[in-house]
């Protein structure tokens, strides 16, 4: 793994240590260890049910691990007091999969909400800052619309504008490409790259879209059945010989039909055992 000396010594922006999460006795995350360095784009890859969304919820502090810890800027989310947690949450902007915009408010009110809640700025300053955030994501003219009037891609961009409103150090995206056509998905990738270049943010992206992952990632982490099977640069993952990584990259399906069960059933049927 290539590490520059400064990134190796600097405290990671996010540090996930031995995190275990189980639901109803099933281990969804099984001892995850992952560091996200400051200023890098980390892409969490994995198939459906691999635990990547659960890991994301741990990183943004919506859930706490049964054992292990998640440190953001060196502070444990699960053990932080209310004031620390509030400060930590303000330093993380999250763009949810479906946008999670409030339909009862206009787009600009959605973007202005964190500013109105957490700052004492004058309304004129808030509206200027809101306009700037919307301009960054290319929605400056759409502020007065209701979120319902926006297309899927525009909703996601508006959600990015809201996530940016408090100038977070860390930006987290949940499935930015899901449900978008390739052109709009590519636009969103460019937006993520542009934001990172402009604001030098730490970016965490959860996705299963390979093209998007390769376009934006500095490093990738691959989850399979609740465990991290690889963490590294694009080149390192591409050259990996791990069968699951190869299967994911080469789009090889799992065997769906259970032929043994079929044979067994057929045999019993012929013997009259199912009458």
């Amino acid at each position, binding site marked *: 793994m290539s590490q520059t000396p400064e990134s190796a010594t600097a405290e990671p922006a996010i540090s996930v240590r031995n995190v275990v999460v189980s639901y109803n006795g099933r281990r969804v995350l099984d001892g995850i260890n992952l560091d996200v360095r400051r200023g890098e784009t980390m892409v969490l890859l994995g198939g459906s049910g691999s635990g990547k969304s659960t890991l994301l919820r741990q990183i943004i*502090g919506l859930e706490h691990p049964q054992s292990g810890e998640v440190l953001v800027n060196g502070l444990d989310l699960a053990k932080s007091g209310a004031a620390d947690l*509030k400060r930590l*949450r303000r330093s993380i902007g*999250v763009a949810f999969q479906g946008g999670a915009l409030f339909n009862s408010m206009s787009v600009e009110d959605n973007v202005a909400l964190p500013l109105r*809640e957490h700052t004492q700025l004058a309304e004129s300053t808030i509206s200027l800052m809101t306009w700037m955030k919307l301009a960054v994501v290319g929605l400056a003219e759409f502020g007065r619309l209701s979120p319902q009037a926006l297309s899927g891609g525009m909703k996601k961009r508006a959600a990015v504008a809201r996530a940016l409103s408090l100038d977070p150090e860390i930006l987290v995206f949940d499935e930015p490409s899901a449900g978008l056509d390739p052109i709009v998905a590519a636009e969103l990738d460019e937006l993520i790259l542009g934001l990172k270049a402009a604001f030098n943010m730490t970016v965490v992206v959860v996705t299963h879209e390979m093209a998007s992952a390769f376009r934006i990632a500095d490093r990738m982490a691959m989850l399979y059945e609740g465990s991290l099977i690889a963490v590294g640069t694009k080149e390192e993952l591409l050259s990996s010989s791990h069968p699951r990584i190869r299967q994911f990259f080469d789009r090889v399906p799992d065997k769906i039909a259970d032929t043994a069960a079929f044979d067994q059933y057929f045999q019993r049927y012929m013997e009259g055992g199912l009458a």
Partner: protein
Amino acid sequence: MTVSLVERIGGATLRHVEYVGGLAIQLQGSIRALGRTLPVVGNRSRWRSAIGQMFAVGVAAAPMVAIMAACAGFILAMQGASELRRFGAMQFVVDLVTIGFTRELGPLLTAIAVSGRSGSAFSAEIGSMVVAEEIDALRTMAIEPVEFVLAPKFLAALIVLPCLTIISSACGILAGGLFMRFSTEMGLGVYLRDVVHSIVLSDVITGLVKSLAFATIIVHVGCLEGFRVRGGPDAVGRSATAAVVKSTFLVILADVGFTALFYLTGGK
């Protein structure tokens, strides 16, 4: 067989205790948040949101509550009159309707109407927000959902339910007067004078105290059902049904408790 029965009873008991615990925790959080919803001292946008809720929960429900109460007042007067007439005690119909509404029917009818209208609306609104990850988004923006979503509804209900209860009682009593006017030729002026004689301040106060308790139950059950939605749109529908059923049941249960308490302490 016995073990499974014991297990089932135990499991159901635990579920109910857990539910009541959830309500208590939510109530505690919302009481702290109420201060930040008040005008002048609190957050301006919460107060604005509370005013919106007052229109939705109170003003929009007023015609329905008034008509329901008027019908119930008319029925109560008719039923009372058909019995009391036999004893030549028609004048007691006035007492029956007045005391019945100020102490009992006014708050109860209002609570049932609001529970059906707004309890389900609260749970459906919050449930949809859960499904669309809006509640998660609030938490990641360091905004407490109980303060942002629930507290304005709670404040609004605490203000409008007593108002609706007064409207309901007034309509019920007036409808009783209308019946008396047509069935006994007792003038409305005479009826209202008798009503003023029958009204006791403590009855009005107990009715209003009940309405505050009912407001708390309706808002908290409705919102808790919404916050507990997991899954998709079908879960939102189920939560709306559960909100109405549970809040109506708990309102009636609380009414029994309050009435028993007032009966035992005040001899009413």
